[in-house]
């Protein structure tokens, strides 16, 4: 057995050239083939790569898709994000538990099936959804969940899981997924017809400096949400010097409620890869990395096939499109379940075969990025714009949108609306107009930019989507007035608690404390002073955190406190049941504190037994 394990690990490591920088690929392969990255496997990987054991352990214990103990051959990962909760995921979960006879976090006794929750898997427009190993299953309800569990138990395989395929490339031979695109509104830039190679050929007719000049003229800004001017980023990368430079495409969209990259990768992979190739030409890189989140592993073979096709067509490789001396190729890097890897320096750490800890900045990636070389990290949507700008000209692009925000933006719209899906809209569009388009007739609150963005109420529905007003990476979740905004904030905080890398104090501890206080308030143990506590804690966490995760994670709490304060106030305890008593330590739950003692004593407290009529 152990000799067999040693041989398997040896061959996996050898396939990755025993290169520690490819530790992610190795761990992914071990997890896939052996069902776990066990302590024994960690030892063997370390020996083969000649690196400290604890470095392997550090990576393996960081990513959600790795496990030290064996899991089932089939892993059901049910998405529990807020939109799934709104669409009845609780019933689906209960059905799965009943049918499989296990709880979440457990594996069936025969080792066949494991049941887990996953944070947003990029399918909020067709929630509730789950991943069965790599296979997405959408629009679940308890009937489908029962059928699914029975099928998996009976067959122990995924072969007959998907019977009908989604539209467009979802039905492609290499995808064959039930996922649908839900492209509700195509626009002039990204979701428009494109002839492969047209932008690239025009780029190669220019000098790299001229390409950068055109991108600057187009006023293109990063689509990930931060909005840094793309041309400037490229300029810094190019001017940083050194022999080696890299371009990385960030396709690690993990913000709950976002799924537009999923549609881009399904329908416009050429456009993204072409943008990357142009970026490579502009900054002087010979290598690119396309970072694909583990939740989209079902697109891996398809994307690799598109790359192979581009190599064949002379659009990747040596002397691209006949341009002598322009050599560029790129590889896919799979992630393994970590939202923080969407942060560009964490993404670089992950590509280098480390845990996804963000790096200290400065130096910025444009100065010192992947393997210490100047690196331009761009969002998949940004790169699509790049290819189109080169094809149609910077003036064409700059004429769309607003002064500070040129072009169009892809929005992933979900929640309480009739037409969830992807919309390509010009920057500057009003929230109220978007609500009309999507058939959200009773919207009471909208989370713009996902959890790390802002929860707005009707008085802000006349605001616009653009970098100078409401900036967003693309997530747009609509809530009706029946939804409990405090509980939504609590769910978002659960997400950040799970996804914080834990490197810095405020994000590691502050998010837990914020979440815990929201739970207390929701259970009816909140005191009036708790709102000031939340505000102070939220502000501290934002101010002191090391990267964008902690700098934005308190936003759900702070923006709901700002815009929906009555929802909090309605939950607060106003005293302790006696009129003359101040709400001293209202957050203290005497019954919970006594529960251990009561269990030991085998009776309830004779003094603190709740009497009828007492509020607490």
């Amino acid at each position, binding site marked *: 057995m152990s000799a067999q394990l040693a041989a398997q690990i040896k061959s996996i490591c050898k396939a990755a050239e025993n290169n520690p920088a490819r530790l992610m690929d190795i761990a992914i392969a071990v997890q896939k083939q052996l069902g776990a990255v066990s*302590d024994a496997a960690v*030892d063997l990987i370390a020996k083969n790569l000649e690196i*400290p*054991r*604890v*470095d392997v*352990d*550090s990576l393996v*214990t*960081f990513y959600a898709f790795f496990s030290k103990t064996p899991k089932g051959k089939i892993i059901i990962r049910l998405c529990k994000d807020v939109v799934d909760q709104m669409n009845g995921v609780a019933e689906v979960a209960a059905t799965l538990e009943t049918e499989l006879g296990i709880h979440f976090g457990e594996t069936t006794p025969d080792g066949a099936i494991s049941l887990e929750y996953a944070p947003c898997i990029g399918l909020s427009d067709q929630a509730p959804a789950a991943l069965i190993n790599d296979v997405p299953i959408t629009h679940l309800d308890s009937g489908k969940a029962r059928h699914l569990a029975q099928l998996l138990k009976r067959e122990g395989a995924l072969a007959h899981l998907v019977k009908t395929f989604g539209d467009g490339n979802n039905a492609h031979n290499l995808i064959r997924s039930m996922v649908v695109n839900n492209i509700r509104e195509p626009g002039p830039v990204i979701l428009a017809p494109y002839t492969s190679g047209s932008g690239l050929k025009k780029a190669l007719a220019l000098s790299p400096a001229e390409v950068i000049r055109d991108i600057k003229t187009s006023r293109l800004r990063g689509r990930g949400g931060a909005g840094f001017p793309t041309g400037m980023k490229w300029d810094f990368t190019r001017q940083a010097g050194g022999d080696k430079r890299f371009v990385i495409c960030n396709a690690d969209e993990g913000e709950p409620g976002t799924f537009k990259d999923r549609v881009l990768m399904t329908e416009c992979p050429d456009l993204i890869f072409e943008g990357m190739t142009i970026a490579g030409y502009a900054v002087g890189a010979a290598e690119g990395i396309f970072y694909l989140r583990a939740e989209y592993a079902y697109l891996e073979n398809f994307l690799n096939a598109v790359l192979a096709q581009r190599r064949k067509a002379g659009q990747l490789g040596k002397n691209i499109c006949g341009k002598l001396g322009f050599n560029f190729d790129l590889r896919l890097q799979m992630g393994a379940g*970590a939202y923080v890897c969407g942060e560009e320096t964490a993404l670089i750490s992950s590509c280098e075969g480390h*845990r996804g800890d963000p790096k*200290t900045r*400065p130096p910025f990636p444009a100065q010192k990025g992947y393997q210490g070389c100047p690196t331009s990290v761009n969002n998949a949507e940004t790169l699509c714009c790049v290819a189109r700008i080169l094809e149609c000209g910077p003036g064409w692009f700059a004429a769309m949108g607003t002064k500070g925000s040129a072009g169009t933006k892809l929005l992933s719209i979900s929640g309480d609306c009739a037409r969830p899906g992807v919309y390509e809209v010009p920057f500057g569009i009003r929230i109220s107009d978007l609500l009309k388009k999507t058939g959200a007739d009773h919207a009471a609150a909208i989370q713009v930019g996902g959890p790390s963005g802002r929860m707005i109420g009707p008085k802000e529905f006349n605001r616009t989507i653009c970098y100078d007003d409401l900036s967003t990476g693309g997530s747009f979740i609509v809530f009706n007035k029946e939804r409990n905004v405090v509980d939504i904030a609590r769910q978002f905080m659960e997400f950040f*608690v*799970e*996804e*914080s*890398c*834990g*490197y*810095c*104090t*405020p994000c*590691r*501890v*502050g998010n*837990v*404390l914020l979440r*815990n206080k929201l739970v207390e308030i929701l259970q009816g143990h909140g005191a009036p002073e708790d709102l000031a*506590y939340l505000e*102070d*804690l939220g502000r*501290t966490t934002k*101010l*002191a*955190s*090391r990267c964008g995760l902690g700098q934005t994670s308190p936003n759900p709490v702070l923006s709901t406190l700002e815009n929906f304060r009555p929802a909090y106030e309605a939950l607060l305890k106003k005293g302790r049941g006696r009129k003359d008593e101040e709400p001293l330590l209202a957050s203290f739950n005497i019954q919970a504190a006594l529960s251990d003692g009561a269990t030991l004593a085998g009776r309830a407290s004779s003094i603190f037994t709740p009497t009828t009529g007492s509020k607490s």
Partner: protein
Amino acid sequence: MSETFELTIDGVTVSAHAGETIMQVADRAGIYIPRLCAHKELHPFGACRVCTVLVNGRPQSSCTQPAAPGIVVENDTETLRNVRKSLIEMLFVEGNHYCMFCERSGLCELQALGYRFGYLAPRYPYQFPTREMDASHPDIFIDRNRCVQCARCVRASRELDHKTVFEFTGRGAHKAIAVNADARLADTDVNGTDRAIDVCPVGCLLRKRHGYRTPIGQRKFDHQPIGSDIEAARSPAAVTG
């Protein structure tokens, strides 16, 4: 020599050399910026965030942020004092810190920061986590209850001892210090004289049989608050600015 320039910290004009961090500049000028994970002999890490300052209005960790000509650094302000005290409180409630029977009491930098910031009771509830201890090694023990995740041991083992005894595993609230062995410190190549043990700011890494060589009452922070050694270097001219 290297280029020098000026910047201001709390309104005091100080001179800096290119390549220095804001913290190094402040230290030389006798201006104390509170810190926990930073250590003079180790590469800056920027994890505890206690040394957060505002640089031209933007929060940055002063241990990692390079000094630059003309920048305006805010350090000792009410907002930042509150943020730092919050961070110290977070570290106290996150672990299990019982100063009254900890053998590092009086030498502990977390405790000393608590005193410096007038910390009496935490505004946050104690988390009372369950954390593992490791007394397997003949000369050293690890009490993870007191770990503040400063990574000083991680860095010192690599940078000063040229080993890799320590590293973090897990993520978020589950992140913990781990050793380069299946489980036990005794199975690593750590040595009782390793610098990695000296640099622990709290009572997480301790040498066995050394605990009370310096009696309580005669310890580093028993008489002078943390940071006073740095402030002692402040010249009268700098004070008047």
